[in-house]
């Protein structure tokens, strides 16, 4: 069935209006030798029932979806209360489009205003926008904003920033005349270091992730002081928003811009998207913040109302000189996060964070006791993710963990850094029961593999 809304009569009439007899004549200008002459080689149409059965059959093949997983590194499995979906799918909310007309959009605008308020509370900042696309694009936008604020063009980025966030940032700034350089990294602690040579009076910002890509909590206060001494901004990126429930906020540590991936706040992992970028800063920089901003105002009778604010700096008015070319924000995903934060409350967010941290601590201790395994940054504070050094190639080890033990044991780092062939990241959240952690530990133990051939080798040294 094809969904063509106009009738055959209407089509004939339209063709007559442009002086043609048949729709095929519309394609006369395409050379005959490149025109498709046979029907497309695709299977025939299915009925709705057949189609559902087909998709269910395909979904059943996705073994990874039902496997215990210890994957993190930017996408985190957390429990989403069912209230999120039921509220989200209400027709009043089910549009992500920008509420340009406040007189018909008070509900959407109020939800965004509440979202911004909670993002400020989580990050310890004063102004938050109505969301960005995801964590990585938020970092890129923060770098562009730092250039606008400081009018400086050098940005130093921690090597412990998620490598994919760095790639996105490189793409964003590659034609913006901004130089990206790297800070140092202490292999003994897993933390970012700064020497005097890497920061000077041309430096617009320092970009650091905390907890960083290796799970280590950075000393944000020291980095903020160092940045401010040079007149630069400190941009803090957070990939795991559940950490806000436990760690001192980046704002309290002196950050100037805090960006985060908001997926942890009630949004499913969903093969990598759609996600949600959180973006917050100090009030004095409000005019340089990218994207939409909702404010509270009063109408002429003094009644409270919510409106888009500072819109004159946005792309639909200021075109190429706008603070950003982000258009419609992630409204629906921001709403999901708003419902999550409201449902969990301060106490709920703390509880989730505590469970994550405690379970990760338990997993880290157990894994470090396995023969041949070590935790290179064990002495550095962490949240729910940590680096493990295996006695063998991590990629191969994790593959066998999946096939022989039905566990997704973490993320091998060889795809990002060939020299880290034996390293992998393990992430534990409140969704991993103790039995799963114990199963992971048992499976990693050298004696757990079935065939002698596939036995994990002890290090040669």
């Amino acid at each position: 069935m094809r969904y063509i809304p106009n009738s055959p009569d209407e089509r004939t009439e339209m063709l007559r209006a442009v002086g043609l007899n048949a729709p095929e004549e519309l394609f006369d200008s395409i050379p005959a030798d490149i025109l498709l002459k046979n029907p497309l080689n695709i299977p025939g149409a299915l009925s709705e029932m057949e189609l559902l059965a087909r998709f269910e059959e395909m979904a059943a093949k996705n073994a990874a979806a039902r496997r215990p997983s210890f994957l993190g590194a930017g996408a985190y499995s957390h429990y989403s209360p069912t209230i999120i979906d039921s509220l989200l799918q209400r027709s009043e909310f089910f549009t992500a489009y920008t509420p340009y007309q406040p007189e018909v959009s008070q509900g959407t605008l109020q939800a965004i205003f509440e979202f911004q308020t909670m993002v400020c509370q989580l990050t310890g900042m004063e102004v938050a926008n109505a969301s960005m696309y995801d964590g990585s694009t938020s970092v890129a936008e923060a770098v562009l904003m730092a250039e606008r604020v400081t009018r400086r063009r050098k940005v130093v980025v921690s090597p412990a920033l998620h490598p994919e966030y760095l790639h996105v940032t490189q793409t964003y700034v590659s034609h913006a005349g901004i130089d990206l350089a790297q800070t140092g990294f202490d292999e003994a602690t897993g933390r970012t270091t700064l020497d005097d040579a890497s920061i000077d009076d041309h430096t617009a910002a320092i970009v650091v992730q905390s907890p960083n890509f290796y799970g280590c909590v950075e000393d944000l206060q020291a980095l903020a002081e160092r940045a401010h001494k040079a007149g630069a901004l400190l941009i803090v990126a957070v990939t795991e928003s559940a950490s806000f429930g436990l760690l001192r906020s980046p704002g309290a540590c002196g950050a100037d811009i805090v960006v985060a991936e908001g997926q942890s706040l009630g949004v499913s992992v969903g093969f990598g998207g759609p996600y949600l970028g959180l973006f917050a800063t100090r009030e004095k920089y409000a005019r340089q913040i990218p994207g939409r901003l909702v404010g509270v105002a009063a109408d002429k009778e003094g009644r409270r109302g919510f409106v888009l604010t500072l819109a004159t700096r946005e792309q639909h008015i200021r075109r190429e000189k706008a603070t950003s070319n982000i258009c419609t924000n992630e409204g629906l995903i921001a709403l999901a996060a708003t419902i999550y934060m409201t449902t969990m409350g301060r106490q709920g967010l703390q509880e989730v964070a505590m469970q994550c941290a405690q379970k990760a601590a338990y997993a880290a201790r157990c894994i470090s006791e396995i023969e041949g395994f070590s935790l290179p940054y064990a002495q550095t504070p962490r949240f729910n993710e940590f680096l493990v050094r295996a006695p063998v190639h991590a990629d191969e080890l994790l593959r066998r963990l999946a096939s022989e033990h039905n566990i997704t044991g973490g993320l091998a780092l060889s795809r990002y850094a060939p020299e880290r062939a034996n390293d992998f990241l393990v992430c534990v959240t409140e969704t991993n029961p103790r039995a799963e952690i114990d199963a992971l530990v048992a499976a990693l133990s050298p004696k757990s593999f079935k065939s002698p051939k596939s036995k994990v080798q002890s290090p040669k040294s």
Partner: protein
Amino acid sequence: MANIPENLHYSKDHEWIKVDGGDMGTVGITDHAQHALGDVVYVELPKVGDKLAAHEVFGSVESVKAVSELYLPVAGEITEVNESLQDEPEKVNNDPYGEAWMIRVRITEPGAVDKLMTAVEYEDYTKAETE
């Protein structure tokens, strides 16, 4: 009818500059410009010490309708900015040639101001632009 004082020089971007004797100049936007912008809510100004070329952007002025760039009429170094506009941007609407002066500059080539428009020329220019 827009107010166009005789003693100032005018740019096509609707800035005025007043030569304060020697190589010092004071810059702001014209009455015509403030009127076209509507209620000004924010003025963004450069840092003292910035050296800018002629027609380079030295800041922006934000009204309820739009954000517009401010262009320096002649090349120079910023020696002073009107900090009071941070808290009272409405001065730009109320007194564009007086209290709402924006920056003072050390003019690189004092002769450059002679290439700008006189009050009479600017009046013709704004008339032509609005027609």
